[in-house]
């Protein structure tokens, strides 16, 4: 697919801080991969503080924040093809996971210091549109455990939950069929749910 179909206007080169590094990373430059992660992390972090309202909401994050448009702005759609974009979103998913986890840990530490009010019990699990720190942290731990025996499933969950990628996009990024991605997602999410419920029952959440 030609990238010109994606965006009509042509912004100045400097508006795309990630593009060059992304292209280098795609060409197999391992160091560029790390730099890409760092850069995406910084950009998303700044964005998250501006857009997700970390400080404003106190102890929870609004989900489905309007990040994607800002995401898209990080990459020059004219120079980056579809596969590169998929790669970028995969990196962005990992960065988003780190941001959310770091943030939740920082706040938990602050609470231990006695600075913050206790977390309200989130009894609206199914309907809630807010994501508590505890949830992020338990999910992060459970994903690490999943990763031990099911690397593929853990990756799929990461791309989907933290990156918002669909089956097809994940399939492209991971070199799998969409059917396999879906199967992997469904079993991994069931396993995680069971794990997290055990967490909550055991009082860890």
């Amino acid at each position, binding site marked *: *697919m030609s990238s010109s*179909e*994606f*965006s009509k206007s042509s912004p100045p080169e400097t508006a795309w801080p990630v593009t060059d590094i992304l292209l280098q990373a795609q060409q197999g430059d391992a160091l560029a991969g790390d730099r890409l992660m760092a850069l995406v992390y910084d950009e998303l972090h700044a964005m998250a503080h501006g857009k997700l309202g970390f400080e404003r909401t106190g102890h929870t994050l609004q*989900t*489905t*924040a309007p*990040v*994607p448009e800002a*995401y898209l702005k990080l990459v020059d759609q004219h120079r980056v093809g*579809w596969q590169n*974009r*998929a790669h970028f*979103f995969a990196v962005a998913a990992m960065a*988003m996971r780190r941001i*959310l986890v770091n943030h939740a840990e920082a706040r938990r530490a602050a609470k231990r210091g006695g600075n913050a009010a206790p977390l309200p019990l989130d*009894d*609206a*699990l*199914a*309907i*809630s*549109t807010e*994501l508590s720190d505890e*949830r992020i942290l338990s*999910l992060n731990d459970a994903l690490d*455990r999943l990763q*031990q*025996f*099911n690397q593929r*499933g853990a990756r799929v*969950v990461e791309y*989907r*939950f*933290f*990156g*918002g*990628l*669909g*089956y*097809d*996009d994940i399939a492209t990024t991971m070199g799998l069929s*969409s059917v396999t991605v*879906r*199967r*992997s*997602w*469904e*079993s991994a*999410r*069931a*396993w*995680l*749910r*069971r*794990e997290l*419920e*055990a*967490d909550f029952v*055991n009082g860890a959440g």
Partner: protein
Amino acid sequence: MNTPEKHSGAPSAERWVAIEAAFAQAASLTGDARIAVLRALDRDDATLAAEVRSLLVASEPWWLDNSVVEMPSTMDAMPERIGPYRLVRQLGRGGMGEVWLALREDADFRQHVALKIVRSGLETTELMAAFRAERQILASLNHPNIAHLLDVGQTPEGRPYLALEFVEGLPLNEYCDQNKLTVDERLKIFCTICYAVKFAHQNLVVHQDLKPSNIIVSATGVPKLLDYGIAKVLSPTSASGGNLDGVPMATPDAMTPEYAAPGQIEGAATTTASDVYALGVVLYQLLTGQLPYASGGKRGAMLERIREAPPRAPSLAVEGAQRSRLAGDLDAIVLRALGRTVGERYSSVEQFAADIERSLSSHPVSVRAHTVGYIAASLVHRHRLCGRCGTQSRGEPQTAGVEHGTDDSHKRPHTSRSTS
């Protein structure tokens, strides 16, 4: 039964491959077929069977299904055209996919349509077959207060789409509130909606997902029902483990529970009586600004409330003059529509609407005891009102009969709406 491999006891990578395969097989089946597979597994490897059962139980929708970021459904750009349609702008996005405003341009006619493009990852072949079948049925649904399904097709990437009549206006509640409609004006619009639903029922089509956001009122006060027949196509019966990626409506968990009749919530077949109930909720909300049951809190708890307790009367949900307006006929009518069992509800939308009209013209309504006192009171009231209330002609579809009076808030620009 063996204990599943829980927490701390994570399986090996090899073991997981077997678990995933067995789980995927069981999850793809329903009913007896699933039970048969699990029984066979019990004989071969009871621990594996227990593990699979435990994962199936954990297969309900939950928060992980909603990504922390909302992405365009695919990263590849939408083409400029899909079939005969030129995409203009995105109107919305939801679990099912995206909705675009599109323009159909032929040699001698131009038409705006709402294109609903199903997102990738759904069962394309089945959906296309269901869409085509539904189009046959919906083609007969020619009514001025029902938005038309114009076309079905597939994008070049194979995603099914629906082309629907594009309706510009506001969702029912917003329209009524913005224009500060009186109770009577709201009831009149509501009756128009009822007659459209009745028309569909006569054509054997149940909406299944009636709610204010599916009822758009144009700037001139004409309501239109959106998404006729679509809920049905998108909710094939699927047991847990089937379509779990937050997709739609497949399980009771995924329907719009606030408007779903108690039976529907438990998975009973939807019938015209479910539409009566949903309309009852819509009317309740229209008159009180509240839902009959508090939403929020645990979903299970809410469903429990709907099953167990009758809702409080609409008049008790408001105060002052509005309370006395709703007390009596309107309370009785709304509560009748919200009957928990089919037998307790109006047996048709037509009866529901007829009672509202009787109440509007101060004739005795069917759901109140016809005591001499009640009939006499209606009579007196009717004669007192006589000068100002015109009789509403029944079954007149297009006019909402709304007068805006001196309030000019309706002149505010209306945003275009379509549901996603």
